[in-house]
């Protein structure tokens, strides 16, 4: 690992840490515009993080060490995920170990810890949130894996970097399987990032919460880390989606200039993606919880269809 | 004068006329005259084919050979006798208030159109048109099954439409696969669906595709034949429709569907080699026979019971054709004829019986002999005939099938005997009290129109005792062609 590679990797991570709250702020602004209300400032998430970091932590009596360490673990997982996903370049030092299945595992690890932490205190809303989160995760993970298998079949490898390189450098061919996989991926990322129609991130009705219910007990820097981790998760999923389905513009080497050139394109793609997310959130209503399995079942179905279509239609000429 | 063209024009034109004029007083007579015309043309056509061999009509679109010409005559004959029976029968139904005049008009016009579609299905050379005609035959009779508009008849017609529709969709897929296999050999000239061309090249058709195609065709057309486990629509449809419709459905449509399977079997045997198609048909036939025989014993409605008897006999015929070879094919063809004549005769007698007693439940029908000896004897003799008692013709064909099975497929014989025995016991046990039991009903003052029944039964009796040589030769030729 040479020095410039290390620098490039750190740059990518730093960009992720800095840009993730901006992405969340942008999505909130678009939602406000679409709903004809005045928007909070674009940098509002930063203000909130700043505020939270300067506040004291209040812990419940029964809180164990798990409760105090979970936010750090979750944050670490998300940073790792952002480091692995090739948002700017496919040739970063972490790339060889970046396996998509490992990536799903990293997300799963974060989910486990936050669910355990929510149940740690023993309040009913925490358990409620944990159970629902596990339900959604249980159904979303197979769908995500199927999407990944489809892309992996096309590029004959499960390494994210290889997938991106193969997809970026092929000719433009209409792949119906990728279309199905893309739609399935959208469904899954809506579910995993706790967005409408699965979960409303702006709700304050506890009985309808999934993600928010798990973090009700957190305060101060713990809450700041968890909110930041949520923004990083959205950033990571968006970058993953862009890398799998719209990979043009990602640099192939690890030169610093190449990375710098890739940043505006990434910013543009994320902005468009954020706007579309806001549109989806505005147009749809939140589903009742018992409909979530159907929603995710549809995602799974589409992903499997993409896989089957790939095997049937596209492997023979 | 081309008998064939005339034979098709009679039902088509009269069907159109009856759509408009079906409510006039002379409409039933028009029905009978049209059917008579059809039959005479069919007879003329038969004489022509017997004399000069197979021929094509309209270029190569229609092909008439020894296999389908006798089925054509049989269809026309049973169509004629049924129309004679249905004239006064349906008038009676109308007078009792169970039918209205517009519905009778629908009935008559659809009846003739149904005849037309069956004749087209039997004589066409194009397997795609065969499919179209089979589906059209189903469509023309759907509304007829629900003619009485009772909940039971609506349910029967719905099941008929949906299940036969699904079945025939499988048959379409089989036809597509067949066309695919044929196109590879015959090219895209449009001849690839013509049976005469296909028979010439049947050895070159790709075996994997043909086997898959035959499976779909057997399942698809087999649904219309009433092979188990796809037979669910048959008892309902045959029991709930008006009796003349039950007679033609049982007696004629099942034969046409089986004919379609036979044409495809010839191709499949040529492509895949003997054994595959035959074994499938034997398996289905035997299974159908057993299922029908056991369900027979549980029936309480007389028409349902005889519908299951139709399924049973169709299973037996399929088994016979599955065995293959000159003797078994001959027996199968003979049995098809006998079954048509006998089953329609039974339905005529049953129709009269149910009309007089007002019910179809067997427990409530008693003492038909006292009510009217003609009906009683008609039903009794018909039942004996269908159960395979000598000297009726059914005995001859069943005997041939059994002996052939004993010689070549001994494992099937106990199953056959068991099924036939169970059916015999069930039907006879139920019909005997119906005919000879005690009843307080008064005897009928006037004789019903019972001629068709005895006409059919005497034909069956005659053919059981003596088959004229030209008929034998005819059957032999057809049997040989079936392989």
């Amino acid at each position, binding site marked *: 690992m040479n020095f410039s590679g290390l620098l490039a990797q750190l740059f990518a991570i730093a960009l992720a840490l800095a840009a993730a709250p901006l992405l969340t702020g942008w999505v909130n602004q678009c939602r406000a515009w679409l709903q004809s209300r005045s928007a909070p400032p674009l940098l509002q998430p930063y203000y909130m993080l700043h505020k939270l970091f300067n506040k004291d932590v209040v812990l419940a009596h029964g809180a164990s060490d798990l409760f105090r360490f979970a936010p750090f673990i979750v944050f670490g997982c998300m940073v790792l995920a952002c480091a692995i996903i090739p948002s700017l370049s496919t040739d970063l030092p972490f790339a060889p170990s970046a396996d998509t299945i490992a990536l799903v595992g990293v997300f799963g690890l974060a989910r486990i810890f936050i669910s355990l932490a929510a149940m740690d205190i023993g309040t009913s809303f925490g358990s409620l949130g944990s159970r629902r989160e596990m339900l959604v995760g249980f159904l979303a993970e197979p769908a995500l894996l199927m999407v990944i298998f489809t892309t992996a079949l096309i590029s004959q490898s499960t390494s994210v970097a290889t997938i991106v390189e193969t997809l970026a450098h*092929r*000719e433009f*061919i*209409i792949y*119906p*399987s990728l279309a199905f996989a893309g739609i399935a991926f959208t469904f899954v990322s809506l579910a995993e990032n706790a967005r409408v129609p699965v979960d409303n991130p702006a709700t304050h009705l506890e009985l309808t919460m999934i993600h928010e219910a798990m973090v009700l007990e957190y305060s101060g820097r713990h809450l700041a880390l968890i909110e930041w981790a949520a923004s990083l998760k959205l950033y990571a999923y968006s970058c993953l989606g862009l890398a799998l389905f719209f990979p043009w513009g990602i640099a192939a080497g690890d030169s610093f200039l190449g990375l710098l050139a890739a940043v505006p394109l990434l910013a543009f793609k994320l902005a468009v993606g954020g706007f579309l997310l806001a549109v989806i959130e505005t147009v749809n209503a939140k589903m009742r919880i018992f409909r979530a399995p*159907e929603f995710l*079942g*549809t995602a799974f*179905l*589409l992903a499997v*269809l993409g896989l*089957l*279509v790939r095997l*049937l*239609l*596209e492997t*023979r*000429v | 004068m081309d008998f064939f063209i005339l034979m098709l024009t009679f039902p088509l034109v009269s069907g159109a006329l009856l759509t408009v004029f079906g409510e006039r007083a002379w409409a039933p007579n028009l029905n009978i005259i049209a059917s008579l015309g059809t039959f005479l043309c069919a007879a003329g056509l038969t004489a022509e084919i017997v004399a000069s061999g197979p021929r094509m009509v309209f270029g190569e679109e229609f092909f008439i050979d020894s296999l389908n010409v006798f089925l054509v005559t049989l269809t026309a004959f049973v169509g004629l006798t049924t129309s004679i029976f249905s004239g006064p029968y349906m008038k009676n139904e109308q007078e009792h208030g169970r039918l209205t005049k517009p519905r009778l008009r629908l009935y008559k016009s659809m009846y003739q159109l149904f005849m037309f579609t069956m004749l087209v299905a039997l004589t066409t050379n*194009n397997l*795609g*048109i065969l*499919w*179209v005609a089979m589906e*059209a035959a189903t*469509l023309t009779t759907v509304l007829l099954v*629900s003619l009485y*508009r*009772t*909940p039971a008849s*609506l349910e*029967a017609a*719905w*099941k008929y*439409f*949906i299940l036969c*529709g*699904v079945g025939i*969709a499988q048959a*379409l*897929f089989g036809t*597509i696969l067949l*066309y*695919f296999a044929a*196109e*590879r050999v015959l090219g*895209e000239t*449009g001849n*690839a*669906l013509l049976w005469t061309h296909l028979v010439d090249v049947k050895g070159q058709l790709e075996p*994997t*595709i043909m086997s*898959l195609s035959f499976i779909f065709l057997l399942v698809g057309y087999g649904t219309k034949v009433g092979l188990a486990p796809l037979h669910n629509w048959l*008892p*309902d449809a045959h029991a*709930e429709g008006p009796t003349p419709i039950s007679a033609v459905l049982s007696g004629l449509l099942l034969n046409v569907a089986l004919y379609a399977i036979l044409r495809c079997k010839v191709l499949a045997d040529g492509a895949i080699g003997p054994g595959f198609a035959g074994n499938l048909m034997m398996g289905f036939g035997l299974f159908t026979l057993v299922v029908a025989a056991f369900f027979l014993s*549980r*029936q*309480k409605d007389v028409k*349902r019971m005889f519908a299951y008897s139709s399924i049973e006999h169709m299973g037996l015929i399929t088994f016979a054709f599955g065995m293959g070879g000159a003797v078994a094919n001959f027996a199968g063809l003979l049995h098809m004829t006998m079954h048509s004549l006998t089953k329609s005769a039974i339905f005529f007698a049953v129709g009269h019986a149910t009309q007089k007693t007002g019910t179809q439940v067997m427990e409530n029908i008693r003492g038909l002999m006292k009510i009217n000896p003609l009906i009683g004897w008609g039903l009794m003799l018909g039942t004996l005939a269908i159960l395979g008692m000598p000297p009726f013709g059914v005995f001859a064909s069943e005997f041939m099938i059994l002996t052939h099975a004993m010689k070549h497929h001994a494992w099937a014989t106990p199953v056959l005997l068991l099924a036939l025995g169970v059916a015999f016991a069930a039907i006879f046990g139920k019909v005997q009290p119906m005919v000879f039991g005690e009843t307080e009903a008064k005897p009928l003052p006037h004789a019903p129109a019972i001629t068709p029944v005895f006409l059919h039964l005497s034909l069956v009796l005659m053919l059981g005792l003596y088959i004229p040589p030209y008929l034998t030769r005819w059957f032999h030729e057809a049997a040989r062609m079936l392989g």
Partner: protein
Amino acid sequence: MNAAIPLTAQLINLFAAVILLLAFAMLAQRRVLPLINLFALQGLTLAASTIVAAVSTGQHHLYWSAGLTLLLKAALLPWILHRLVRRLHVKWEVESLINVPTTMLVGIGLVIIAFNVALPISQLSDTITRGTLGIALAVVMLAFLMMITRTKAIPQVVGFLAMENGLFLAATSATYGMPMVVELGIALDVLVGAIILGVFFFQIRDQFDSLDIRHMERLKDN
């Protein structure tokens, strides 16, 4: 690896995938009017796919087939069905015998079976559209599943018609369509069938005051 697939083949594959997607969407659809619209959309996609095949192979009778499909399945039949729904005054939710996620899973199983069955045949064919035979068979089986698991009459009919769509796709994918006369006959059958069904629905509705086919399960062997 894939550089040799021409644009027309890609388009046909894309249309076939959309048809499969629509078949699943019909299977999951809860309401009747969108169901009929999905069926019309499927007919439209079918016609488009046939036209692309016609353009790329120069078989003129495929243009006529496509026109026939467009007229019948994308316009006439949906119009008849819409009129029926309006005159029968029904706007129900589609109930089904097993719940939607299970239906979907069974559907996936059927698709896998269909693809397996069709594989040896596709390998023997040499049309531009042969990959879509598996999809056609899958559409037929999905439509069949839809017919079995629905309890109201109109969705069963839509399933029946969707089966015809699948069969048409199978015909065009394996052999560039059947001879024209056969296709006309099939189209005629389908149309007459739809009309007869329309008449039939009124009879059912008059008798049972509802189009729930569970009313029609009383005939049993007893």
